[in-house]
Structures are given as C-alpha cells and as structure tokens.
C-alpha cells in the first residue's frame, strides 16, 4: 500500500518543493553551517568555503530531490509540455493550421470508428447488457430445412426445447422481423418484430405507456400489439389516445396495449411495433408454412438472459446439448450453437460488415497519414525558422534524445488539443450519419466507450509520433550543422511524393467504385428499368390452393395486358435483381456446375428483351413430364455442352429432375445490378410458384398510373390481397443505396487526400519561393523571364511526382485487389485501366496548379526589391 501511495505522490509530484522553496531551505542550511564555522574561529570567507564543502554539491542535491520527488521522465514531460505551449503561442497561425489538420484527420477516424463501434462492436442492448446472450443456430449435414430471415434462426421446436430445458438462462426470447402494411397511421408501413411475449419484459427496463406484452397474450392468441416509442412518434405523432385503439396490420385488426421505450434489443435498427409471434399465421403467413410446420421452417431469432452466475460459454454448451437431441431425431442433421454477448461482429451473420469496416477505417487511416505528412511538412518549415534556437540548445548541452522528445511533445500537444473536438464529434455525429445509409430508423446508441476512447487515444499518439518524429530528427541534424543554411528541402519533397502516392491510390479506388456504381445504377439492359413494374402479390397468404392461384393469375394477366400503354405482362418466380436460388446441374458425361434458377412465363423473354440464339422458347401448355423442357442461358449452354449444339441435350437438375434443353438465349443481367448473370436456367413457371411470384409489366406509358391500375384490378379480384409495386429502376436504386456508405467514404477520402497533398505542395512551393526570393531576383536581374522561374520550380516537381506515380500505381493496384476481394458487396473490375489513367492525370494537373499558382503570385515583386530584402 505504501508503495502505491508513494507512486502516486511521485506521479503528481506532491512533495516536489518549488525551486524557490528548496533554494530557501538550502540557503538557511548553508547560513547555519557558515555561522557554525565562524563560531569555531574561521574568517567569513573560509567559513563560506568550508560550509559548501560540508554541504556537498548544491546542484546534485537539487537533482536528487527532483528525482526522488517525482519521476524524471514525467517531470521532463511536464516541462516539455509547458515549453510546447509557450512555443505554440509564439507561432499561432501555424499552430492553428496544425490543430485544424489534426482535428480533421483524427476527427474523421474517431467518427468512423465510433459509427462502426455503435453498430458492430458494441452489444446491441441498452438494458443490463451484462446478462444478454444472442443465440445462433448453425445447421449442417444432409438434412435440409427452409429459412425465413437469416440462416442462423431457430424453428419453433428449437425455441420451445430451449425455453423449457435451459438452466443457464433466466429467460429465452424469440423474435422475427416483419413488415406490416397499415391503413390507420401516418405512414403506410410499420416495420417491427414478431416476438415471444416475454420479450419486452426480458430486454427492456420500463414501459412508456400502457403495458407490455404478457405471456397470456401469446397463450390466448390475443390480437394485441405494443408500439415502440419511435413507432408511436413516426406513426401516430405521440398521440396518447392510441392506447386501446384498433389498428389494421396487413388488414388484420389488432389493439394497441402499450408503448415500449426505444431501448436497443439486439439489432442496430429500431423496430416500430412489437407483435405477439402467435399472430404470425394471420399477419404474415409464409408461403407454404404456418406455425404448424414447427420443424421445417427456421424463422425465429433467439436471445436470452443469463441466469445469475452463469456465463455465455456455459449457455452455449448447454444449448448445444439440448439441440443435439434433435440430431438423433432427424438423421443427417447436425446442430451447433453459438452464443455471443450481442455484438454483431461476434456473430456468424456479420457478413461483409467487418470487411466494410476495415476498408472504411483503412481509408480514414490513410487520410490521417496524409494529414501527418502535411503536418510534418509544416513543422519542417518551422524548424528552418528555429534553426538558431536548436543550435543554441545543442551547444549548451541538450542531448539529442532530449531535444527529439521535446519536439515530439510539441506535436503531441497540438494533437491532444485537436482530439477534444474530435471526441465531441464522435459522440454526436455517428447517429445522424449512419441514418443516411438506411431508410429504417437506427436504434443503436453511439456512446464514447473504452473502445472509442482507446482507439482515438492510440491514433492521437501515433499521429503525433509520425508527424513529429521526422521533422524533429531533421531539425536536429540540421541544427547540429548550423553552418548549413538550406532547409531539408528534399525531405519535404519526398514527403509530398508519399502524399501523391496515397492520393493516387485513393483516386483510383474512387474511380473503380464510381465505375461499379455507374454500372449498378445504369445496367446495360435491353429494356428501360423505369418502364418495367414489379408487382408482388401475396397470393399465398390467402391459404388458397395452387389451382386457385393459377386461376387468379389467369384472370389478372389479360386485364393488365389490356391496360393502356402496357406492352408485355409476364410472371417470374423471383423479381429482377432480387437474387435467385441456385441448383447443381450435371450432364451425363460428368460436366457439372451450378446455375441460378428462374421460373418464368413464356412471355418473360420478350418482356425482358432476351434474344433467342438457338432452338425455341416455351410454348403454352408444354408437357413437363417425365422430362422437363428448359431454356438455358448461353454461358450455361457453353459449360454443359462445350462443343456443338446444346439444343436437345438432357441433363439433371440437382439429384432428381431430368431436363431437356429446348432453347438457348443470350446472357443478360437480371440477378445483381451491374453484373452479368453467369449460368442461368429458365424453367417454365407452374402453379407451385405462384403463391409468392412477381408480376412483371412493361409499359410505354406512365408507370405510376399503371401501378395504381394493377392494384385496383387485384383488389377487385381478391379484396383481401396485399399488393406492393415498384419499378425495376427503384429496385436497382435500393440495391445501390447499400453501397452509398462505401462510395461516400472513398470519394470523400480521395478528394481530401488530393486536397491535402496539393495544399502541402502549395505551401511548400510558396515557402520555397519566399526563401529563394534573392536567388530569383538575381536570376531575373540577369535576364531570366518569369517563365524560366516557373520552370525552375516545376522541375523540382520531378521528385515528388516520380515517387507519387512510381509508388502510387502499385499501391492503387493493391487497393483495387483488396476492394475486389471484398467483392461480396460490389461488382468491381480492378483490371480496368481508365480509373488509373484518370487518377494520374488528375494528380499531374493538381500538382502543376499547386506549383504554378504560388510561383506566379509570389514572384511578382521586381528584382530590385527582392534583392533589397534582408
């Protein structure tokens, strides 16, 4: 204990006497010693000598005191800090410039990190995060089941097994996202969760209005819902009379019994309404499933609360054992359970998010590096001015290491000042920022936890080291050799070269991402995506037979076909750019591959402008047994039958069906925007698909009015049906919106990089011009024209540009490669040359301007004046 106390006393230097006090104490001591010697009969002079002999070295005593009272390094740091503050006040403009640069670089990083921290790294729980557990099921083996939602969800059987048997969990909850059409609110849809009735009690701390859902709501199948506070605000303007009101969710009447607080409950997106999961069959029926298919369908996302004293790992072990019992029941099934503390990045469904995070943080880090290079250049410029001071300090005995430490402390001081606004922004900005990237309300809270603060502190320290060390070392070398008057010009130019290299890499990345986005938004289609309407009709929820679905479409399609402006109507199992299931296909010889599968009506090809290359298209009423007639895309035909005519060939789909190729059509883009489809297999659509198919309508007229007409026509045929419609262009735009974050970050990063690099170059050139004013004056007096002077400076661009392009191009290729590896989320073509060319061109132009402008503006004074100055 004493040791610790002494440490803190020393740390804060509590017993550190002020220099004056220690002086006084020592002086009294010496005076008493002198008097003693005088009493013993010495002369005043010899008493003084004897006294200081008895006392020993005064300086050593003071130094020993300083070492004992504090820690020397700490005391030095305190002094350096004070010195730094004084010297920063001496050049306020420069200090402000550096602080602003740092604030910008560190702030950008802190905000980016805080945003990802809030969404990915933090547990998405506000109430008692310590006991929260998120539960993921991982099924492998031959046994197959279907999913509604994510692959890691649980079936009703899984949920009930865990709920009744788990000892490690005090509560087990289930939830599933669902979207509800609503007629009686301020908005047309409420996105919310189907939840087990213990959900709100387990995960939230209080109630805003009314009551929570209670177990009896579920067991009695009551038609009640609880709004979230956000849902209450968005949908009902916080109207307190909403309690007890009857709303119609997907046309089903439900009563509002309460309003829940906006506390995060496992997702970064905030639900607007909570509905008992027992209402699923009435509100959101799945195609061929209901609550009865307890085992075949996984749709519930599980979470829980640990029993007191239990750990996440213990819960994982126990749940694993409980669910393994199903593996005995269903042969071929293998169940593994993963439990996490609720942070999305720990779960198996993080998807490309960690990659996006690393890329965004990497881009922000590069920017900070650029900022550091810029700050270093500014500090270098100042060290020229401090040459004399450095030389003096070295000559009176300051050690190299001590001087370097002092310079780095100065930089660190500036960086620390810059950290303050950065932290404030990292607290307030990520919320509104992340909201830009999703139409759904963000529920994650962005707080400055130890991760955000630690990351920012680490960055600040490294930035100060990076930006401060180079100029400190340079200044030192330069100060030792006080006779040399030229500043370390080459060093500055080298650093600008590095900035160019980074800018070039980022500019190329911007070009690549922009290209990918352009392809995404303007896919090369043989139809105008604005003119094709996708109508989703949830025929399946009627619970009617396939044959009634068939007759519904048989009645609807001629009606739509007859609407003004409509040229084609078709049905597809999956809408354009909605993805497609894949199946293994193999020919007898052994050629096997996997292909995307799309079931379409014969009219689909004409509607989508897909050309027939060989054979024929589907005919109405084609016989599909025992051999199914299919149409394949050109690339699938090439894979299956590399040589010769594919038409008439037979192959197998998956394990069962035998199919015969009746036609080959050209490749197109219909699965992911901006990407060619690859092997694609077209089956003729049959009644089994119609429960959840997409009606495609191509119109020459106004899409919006056609959409309304289709809705009216549908309602007339089946008033209970719910219809949503949008154009293919809208689907593509939604898809593209997901990538806005990435392209925004890359665009901002590269723009800033170039700006910073050119600002650095501009400053350096302007500085060089002023410094070489005399030389320029002489040159001009000897007959040099302004053009020659400009050429003189432009020629000094050679070095940074060589470094920039020489280092930047490989770096750009590396970045392109990295982005391409992350291809999961964007279709890039890293081998495209245009972005590289554009980036180099932009760099050259900017560098040229940043050199020529300062030379032109500063070399105006006439030679005589230039020679006269200093």
């Amino acid at each position: 204990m004493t040791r610790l106390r002494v440490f803190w006393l020393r740390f804060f230097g509590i017993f550190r006497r002020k220099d004056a006090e220690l002086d006084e104490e020592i002086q009294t001591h010496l005076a008493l010693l002198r008097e003693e010697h005088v009493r013993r009969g010495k002369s005043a002079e010899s008493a003084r000598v004897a006294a200081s002999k008895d006392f020993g070295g005064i300086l050593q005593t003071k130094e020993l005191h300083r070492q004992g009272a504090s820690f020397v390094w700490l005391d030095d740091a305190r002094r350096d800090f004070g010195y730094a503050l004084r010297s920063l006040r001496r050049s306020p403009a420069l200090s402000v410039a550096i602080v602003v640069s740092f604030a910008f670089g560190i702030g950008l990083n802190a905000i980016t990190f805080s945003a990802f921290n809030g969404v990915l790294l933090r547990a998405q729980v506000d109430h008692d995060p310590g006991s929260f557990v998120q539960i993921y099921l991982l099924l492998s083996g031959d046994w197959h089941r279907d999913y509604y939602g994510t692959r890691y969800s649980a079936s009703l059987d899984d949920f009930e097994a865990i709920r009744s048997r788990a000892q490690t969990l005090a509560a087990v909850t289930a939830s599933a996202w669902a979207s509800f059409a609503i007629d009686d609110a301020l908005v047309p849809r409420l996105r919310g969760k189907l939840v087990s009735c213990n959900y709100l009690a387990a995960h939230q701390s209080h109630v805003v209005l009314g009551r929570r859902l209670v177990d009896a709501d579920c067991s009695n199948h009551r038609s009640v819902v609880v709004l979230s506070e956000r849902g209450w605000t968005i949908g009902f303007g916080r109207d307190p009379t909403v309690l007890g009101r009857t709303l119609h969710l997907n046309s089903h009447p439900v009563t509002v019994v309460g309003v829940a607080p906006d506390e995060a409950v496992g997702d970064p997106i905030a639900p607007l309404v909570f509905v008992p999961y027992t209402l699923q069959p009435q509100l959101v029926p799945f195609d061929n499933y209901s609550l009865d298919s307890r085992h075949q369908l996984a749709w519930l996302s599980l979470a829980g609360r640990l029993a007191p004293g239990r750990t996440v790992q213990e819960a994982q072990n126990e749940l694993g054992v409980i669910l393994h019992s199903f593996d005995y029941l269903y042969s071929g099934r293998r169940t593994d359970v993963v439990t996490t503390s609720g942070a999305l990045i720990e779960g198996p469904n993080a998807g490309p998010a960690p990659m996006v995070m690393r890329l965004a943080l990497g881009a922000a880090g590069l920017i900070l590096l650029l900022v550091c290079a810029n700050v270093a250049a500014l500090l270098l410029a100042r060290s020229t001015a401090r040459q004399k001071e450095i030389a003096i300090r070295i000559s009176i005995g300051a050690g190299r290491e001590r001087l370097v430490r002092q310079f780095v402390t100065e930089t660190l001081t500036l960086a620390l000042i810059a950290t303050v606004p950065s932290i404030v922004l990292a607290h307030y900005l990520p919320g509104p920022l992340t909201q830009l990237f999703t139409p759904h309300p963000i529920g994650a809270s962005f707080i400055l936890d130890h991760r955000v603060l630690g990351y920012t502190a680490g960055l600040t320290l490294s930035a100060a080291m990076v930006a401060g060390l180079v100029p400190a070392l340079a200044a030192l070398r330069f100060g030792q050799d006080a006779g040399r008057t030229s500043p370390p010009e080459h060093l500055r130019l080298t650093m600008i070269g590095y900035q160019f290299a980074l800018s070039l890499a980022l500019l190329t990345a911007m070009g690549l991402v922009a290209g990918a986005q352009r392809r995404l938004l303007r896919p090369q289609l043989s139809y105008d995506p604005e003119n094709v309407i996708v109508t989703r009709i949830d025929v399946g929820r009627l619970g009617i037979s396939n044959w009634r679905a068939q007759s519904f479409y048989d009645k609807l399609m001629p009606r739509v076909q007859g609407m003004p402006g409509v040229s084609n109507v078709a049905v597809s199992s999956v809408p354009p750019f909605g993805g497609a299931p894949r199946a293994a296909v193999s020919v007898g010889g052994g050629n096997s591959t996997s292909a995307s599968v799309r079931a379409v009506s014969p009219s689909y090809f004409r509607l989508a402008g897909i050309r027939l290359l060989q054979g024929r298209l589907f005919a109405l009423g084609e016989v599909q047994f025992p051999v199914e007639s299919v149409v394949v895309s050109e690339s699938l035909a090439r894979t299956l039958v590399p040589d010769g005519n594919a038409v008439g060939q037979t192959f197998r789909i998956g394990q069962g069906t035998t199919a015969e190729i009746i036609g080959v059509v050209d490749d197109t883009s219909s699965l992911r925007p901006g990407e060619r489809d690859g092997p694609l297999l077209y089956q003729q659509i049959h009644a089994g698909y119609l429960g959840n198919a997409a009606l495609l309508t191509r119109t020459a007229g106004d899409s919006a009015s056609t959409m309304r007409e289709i809705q009216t026509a549908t309602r007339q045929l089946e008033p209970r049906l719910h219809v949503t419609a949008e154009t293919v262009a809208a689907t593509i735009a939604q898809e593209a919106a997901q990538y806005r974050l990435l392209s925004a970050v890359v665009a901002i990063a590269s723009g800033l990089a170039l700006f910073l690099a050119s600002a650095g170059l501009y400053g350096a050139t302007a500085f060089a011009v002023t410094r070489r004013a005399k030389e320029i004056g002489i040159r001009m007096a000897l007959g040099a024209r302004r053009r020659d002077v400009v050429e003189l400076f432009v020629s000094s661009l050679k070095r940074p540009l060589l470094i920039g392009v020489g280092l930047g191009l490989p770096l750009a290729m590396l970045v392109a490669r990295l982005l391409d590896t992350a291809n999961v989320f964007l279709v890039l073509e890293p081998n495209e040359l245009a972005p590289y060319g554009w980036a180099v061109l932009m760099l050259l132009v900017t560098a040229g301007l940043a050199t020529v402008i300062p030379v032109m503006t500063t070399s105006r004074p006439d030679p005589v004046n230039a020679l006269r100055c200093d």
Partner: protein
Amino acid sequence: MAPSPSEVPYGTLDVMVLKTLEQMGPLHDYGIARRIEQIAEGMLALNQGTIYPALLRLEQRSWIRSEWGSSENNRRARFYSITRAGKKQLKTEADAWARIVAMMQRTLGEEG
C-alpha cells in the same frame, strides 16, 4: 592508523534521521545533519546535502512531517518532526538492527 570515515550504508540514514527526530523533537535539516555528525563522531563522511532525499523519502511514506518555522538565526527554515507511523517504523527498524548486530557478533565472534 585511524579508520577512515566510511560511506553511509544505504538505508541507514533514514533510520538515523528517525531516531534523531524521536530523541530531539522537531528539528530543521541543518540541526538533523549536525546531530547525526555529532553522534557519528567523525566515523561517517556525510555530505549534509544527502539528507534532503532522505527527508523526502520519509515524508512520502508519512513517517515524518514538516512545516515552516524560524531558525535560531531568524531565517525561515523547515522543521521536521516524527509521526506516529514513523515511531512505529523506527521500532521495527531498531529491532531488525539489533537482530542483525547480534547475529553478526555471533558470527564474527565464533570466527575470531
């Protein structure tokens, strides 16, 4: 030949300071240094400056405390006095010393 004054063994100065303050009551730094020199009777070569770190160490451990007062020549001087914890510590140290001395005597006595 008279034995040459030996260096102060590390750590013993602290004990000497504590003992001095216990015996003499509050003293300023010069007084402490003088007193130790007197007791040592020329057996120790003490640079009087070396007691400053010792005083600091003791004060950090709260075995002594200090306050400003005025010296016999009417200068401002810092007066140090022993605390309760200091007295306890002194007793511990004195016992330890006594044990070591007894042990050393036995060891050396047997040899000689």
